[in-house]
């Protein structure tokens, strides 16, 4: 099970990193989502993997799993969900205002427009 989980985390992270390095916002947003899934699984695993045990101490002193990472994962899920919504809205706004969904800044961000054409380029 450790192998399965770590493999899943690794693959999600690799896919996420690949996607956030793309130049289009859609791929970047997907990559963010993948990365946050990977990190949620990772956080879940930081309390060690225990099968079939409740996240609470019981009187009998039986096996239990660490409840704190589960609470952390819950917080992290909520936050990453909200952040994904924000980045989708921003990407949509940038697409509607700028006309394309590229992530990199155009040249007009760094250099003044040439005297003739007022609009910059790219």
């Amino acid at each position, binding site marked *: 099970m450790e192998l399965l989980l770590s493999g899943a985390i690794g693959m999600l992270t690799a896919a996420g990193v690949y996607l*956030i390095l793309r130049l289009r*916002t859609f791929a*970047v947003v997907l990559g*963010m989502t993948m*990365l*946050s899934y*990977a*990190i949620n699984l*990772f*956080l879940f*695993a*930081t*309390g*060690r993997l225990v099968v079939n045990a409740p996240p609470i101490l019981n009187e009998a002193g039986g096996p239990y799993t660490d409840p*704190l*990472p589960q609470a*952390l994962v819950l*917080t*992290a899920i909520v*936050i*990453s969900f*909200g*952040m994904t919504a*924000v*980045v989708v809205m*921003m*990407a949509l*706004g*940038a697409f509607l*205002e*700028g*006309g394309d969904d*590229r*992530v*990199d*800044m*155009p040249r*007009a*961000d*760094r*250099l*003044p427009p040439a005297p003739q054409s007022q609009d910059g380029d790219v």
Partner: protein
Amino acid sequence: MSHLIIAPVILPAVIGPLIILWMRNDLMLQRVFSIAGTALLAGVAIYLNALAMGGDVHVYRLGNWAAPFGIVLMLDRLSALMLLLTAVLALAVQLYAVGSGWDRKGRHFHALWQFQLMGICGAFLTGDAFNLFVFFEVLLIASYGLMIHGGGGMRLRAGVQYIAYNLAGSTLFLAALGVLYSVTGTLNMADMALRVAAMPAEDTALLRTGAVLLMLVFAVKAALVPLHFWLPSTYANAPGPVAALFAIMTKVGVYGIIRFFTLVFPQDAVIEGVVADLLLPAALFTLAIGQIGILGTRHLGRLAAFAAIGSIGTLMIAVAQFNPQGTAAAVYYMIHSTLAAGALFLIMDMIGARRGDLWLRLEQVMPDNGLVAALYFIAAIAVAGMPPLSGFIGKLLVMQATRPAPGMVWIWATILITSLIAIYALARAGSIVFWKSYELGPAPVPAPPAATGPKLEPDEPIQDLGDAPANWLAVASVLLLLSGIVALTALAGPALRLAEATAAQLHNPDAYVSAVLEAQEGTK
């Protein structure tokens, strides 16, 4: 225990929603409440400074739960000082935003401003590592809203980059916290310090990974050089007052490094060595690239952004010494560089408001040329670190602190050469903008604006000054920041003693641990 310790978090958290719920359509009411809230925050910060001045570490237990299980807020000299710095900067910059009319370029400026303050204050106060992450997210999500305030294609696109970069940083933060939790089994910083100290040296491989991951996260926030790429476009495209407030956000990253690497990790000599080895070269490169960036850029907003990067470099050189003297220099320089960067961003915005754009090129003489030039002159002296202002004293302190360091030659050479570059670059920018413009003759008298009704459509820096409700307020707020720098210069002795006391407290982590974990009964 004083309940006012939590006030810097609660106060903005209450005022922000009130502004959204009750004053959504009344800008004047928003302004009054928001500025009153920030002023109150400054008052609380002054009180907390007086409280922390006693030298004790004050602990606030949320819900009065015992420390490693409940969440704690910690108030010491450094957090109190950072709170005061935040409140003063926020108040001055907010007055500028009102005076220049920026706050009516879009909706919810003041509410977002309060949420931003809540996140920053919480990050400075918390004594729990996961809580630090949560407050980071609070300040980031508010900063996303503030950054695109006023809208515009270029700004939105820069905003997407900013969010993407910081979301990646947040996942890194979670990874670091996960690693640290899996090794130490706690998230309370003081408890973590105890567990780290008790850990046998051969078991600390994962711990070191976690520590370096955490340092990377804070380096992203502080815009240390290989991780600084988000900063120039973000700060140059953000509205002027927002960029000025962001001057404190990079300091949150610096604060995180100081806090974790004086409290949690100093027990492990290897971590200290690894981090210092990584941090010092990164700081030197940050300084060099920041100051060369000032020289290379053709946009005044980017010029201020690169100046901010350079100041982070100087700051990190002092932090990377990890000794009381270096930390004291860092604390002093942090106050100075926050005020100076804030003032520089505001002055750039004033130039933008008068010229219509921020390109560093020859244009017609702008209105109020002399006034803005004088303000720029003072701010440039402070930013470049020339005498007589506090930037000079700060750099001197940093150099003094690095004198016994092994790489002293490199450090001094970098600081001195880049200072020269910065002086040249700032002087060149000033003379192009303010002096050479006379070669083109005075600007044609602009036609009076036809109607000065409320203007809510997004546009770039304010074109018509008639739109600004109180231009004198904008000038006064810049003067407020500059007078802060002058005060820091005139009172350099007391300020330095305060910084030294702060550093001494930081380098004695046992006091924290006992305040948080051992002295619990007396506080109930």
